[in-house]
């Protein structure tokens, strides 16, 4: 494979051959990884499930567009004003004030993705940066950062967000997302840090230093591409914990009252005492949360299998 890159003439105005090689290198690697991933049964199931949920999320706009009575939050059905079972009119039945459960489920999917992915992105951003800095900079910085990470890891995220909401009142969904991210980065940081530590002494880093590259450039140009696969892998795990924490918060009544999430649905079932009589209301949200968690976990595990041998191969290719 390397012959392909070395034999093609490098144009004069490209920054440097190595960087050029990186970009098409990436596409190749992705396609390579994809073909391995495809064979993994767990990964396939996981991805299928995720696709299903993504479809649900995308479709969440449809019900209320079809008929306003199907709006998850404000849909008022003139004919029904209490909890009913599944019917042709309402596929999964209605909640205690007659709102359609199925459209709530779809809206929940949208919220789950939103919360999960944005929270995971922020915590990956944080975690990767801090991890790289800790692994690359001197021992003192490393020590301080890792102590900080340890302290945060010990804290139970849910309870911290609880106490914060006590102080700051009812929380907006984005604030919740941010707070979850702020407490979930240590896990990523630790892994990225060890990867950075092992990369730090590789010849290509030394070469970059000798050629006068600044530390920042080294970190973002050379180390980041190598730790990126790992970061992306851990993102899948962050997504699941973000979704679960948001669901737990909503369940306890501390979620954003303006958003319909699966956790919120469970809260309604529970608090309005319909737990015992309305299985069609109780079961779907819980099943969805569990399934999406499983889906992300499966995807993550399959990615892990793909990346693991490749990570090692990566270290020799630089």
């Amino acid at each position: 494979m390397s012959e392909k890159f070395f034999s093609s003439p490098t144009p004069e105005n490209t920054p440097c051959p190595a960087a050029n090689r990186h970009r098409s290198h990436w596409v190749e690697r992705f396609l390579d990884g994809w073909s391995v991933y495809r064979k993994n049964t767990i990964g396939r199931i996981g991805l299928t499930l995720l696709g299903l949920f993504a479809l649900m999320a995308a479709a969440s706009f449809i019900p209320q567009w079809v008929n306003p009575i199907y709006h998850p939050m404000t849909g008022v059905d003139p004919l029904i004003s209490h909890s009913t079972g599944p019917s042709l009119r309402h596929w999964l039945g209605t909640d205690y004030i007659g709102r359609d459960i199925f459209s709530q489920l779809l809206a929940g999917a949208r919220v789950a993705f939103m919360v999960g992915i944005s929270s995971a992105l922020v915590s990956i951003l944080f975690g990767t940066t801090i991890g790289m800095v800790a692994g690359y900079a001197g021992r003192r910085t490393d020590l301080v950062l890792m102590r900080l990470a340890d302290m945060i890891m010990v804290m139970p995220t849910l309870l911290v967000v609880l106490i914060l909401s006590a102080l700051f009142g009812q929380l907006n969904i984005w604030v919740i997302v941010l707070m979850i991210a702020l407490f979930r980065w240590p896990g990523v940081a630790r892994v990225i840090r060890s990867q950075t530590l092992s990369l730090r002494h590789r010849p290509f880093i030394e070469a970059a230093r000798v050629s006068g590259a600044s530390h920042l450039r080294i970190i973002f140009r050379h180390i980041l591409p190598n730790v990126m696969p790992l970061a992306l892998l851990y993102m899948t795990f962050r997504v699941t914990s973000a979704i679960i924490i948001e669901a737990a918060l909503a369940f306890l009544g501390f979620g954003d009252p303006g958003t319909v999430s699966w956790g919120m649905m469970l809260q309604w079932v529970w608090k309005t005492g319909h737990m015992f009589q309305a299985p069609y209301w109780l079961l779907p949200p819980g099943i969805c949360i569990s399934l999406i968690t499983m889906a992300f976990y499966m995807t993550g595990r399959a990615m892990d299998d793909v990346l693991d041998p490749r990570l090692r191969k990566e270290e020799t290719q630089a």
Partner: protein
Amino acid sequence: MGLKRFIFRRLVEIAVIFFVIMTILFVLFRLAPGDPVSRMVDPSMTPEDARLLMETMGLDQPVWTQYLYYLKNAATGNMGISFHYGEPVSHILMNRLPNTILLFTTSIILSALLGVFLGKIAAWKQGERIDTLMTIGALFCHTLFLPWLALIMIWFFAYWVGWFPITGMVSPEVWIDPDAGFLIKALDVLHHMALPLMTLILIHFGSYLLVMRSSMLETLKDDYILTARAKGLDEKTIRDHHAAPNAALPVVTSVGLSLAFSINGGALTETVFTWPGLGRELVFSVSHADYPLAQAAFLLIAIVVLLANLVVDVLYAYLDPRIRY
């Protein structure tokens, strides 16, 4: 020996961390919108009582002095009066603490034991049907949403089948009865504890099973396993006496790492099952704007988590002779 020094050092670390947490809370309480005084003193108190309380807590003093009062009060256990209960916060929480410890500790120990036991078998029979079954089962249980599982458990076992009580820790009749002996009371508590305990175990044993399984698979590659075989020991002895004790060590570490997750789960479980513990009190106080109680409950939970971490670390050091000696 080294162990005592180790414990001492960790206790100092815990004190530092706790100190930091307290300070952060202090700052947050004052930064948050609204009148900080109304957070400490119940607005519905009589003016005289309010003034007395303010003096004890130093709320009429400049911020720095308040901080010192805050620390002093925390050290002496005076965390204010609960808005809701009207009693000193420390009384309430000390009452709740044993309940949480009981449920929490029992659930962790039992799920760890179950996970180790099943994980050992799964690894031993790797690739066979029972291994696949257990791995999938563990994964399935691990991804269940805890509050939802709790509701399902209540629905099924308490409502439908009626075997267990729906809420609470004790049946009032039993506890008020002067003739009821300790055994009856203990059985009553166990009866109430069964459902929350089962829920917690179901959620947590999965990850311990998976850790034990992969740890066991690694251990089986070690040289001393070959030595054990060469000694003519039978398979069961090799598995249980040689491999499992070594493989169980990472599980202990895993317990320590997932303590925060466990405490989250504990709070949720207590809330759903109305188990009168610290977690439930925290949730309750936050939703009722009972600030003194909320703050104290949080701090107490923080100490419990930190000390639990220490206990797990000491346990690991005790179990692994390479650390002890």
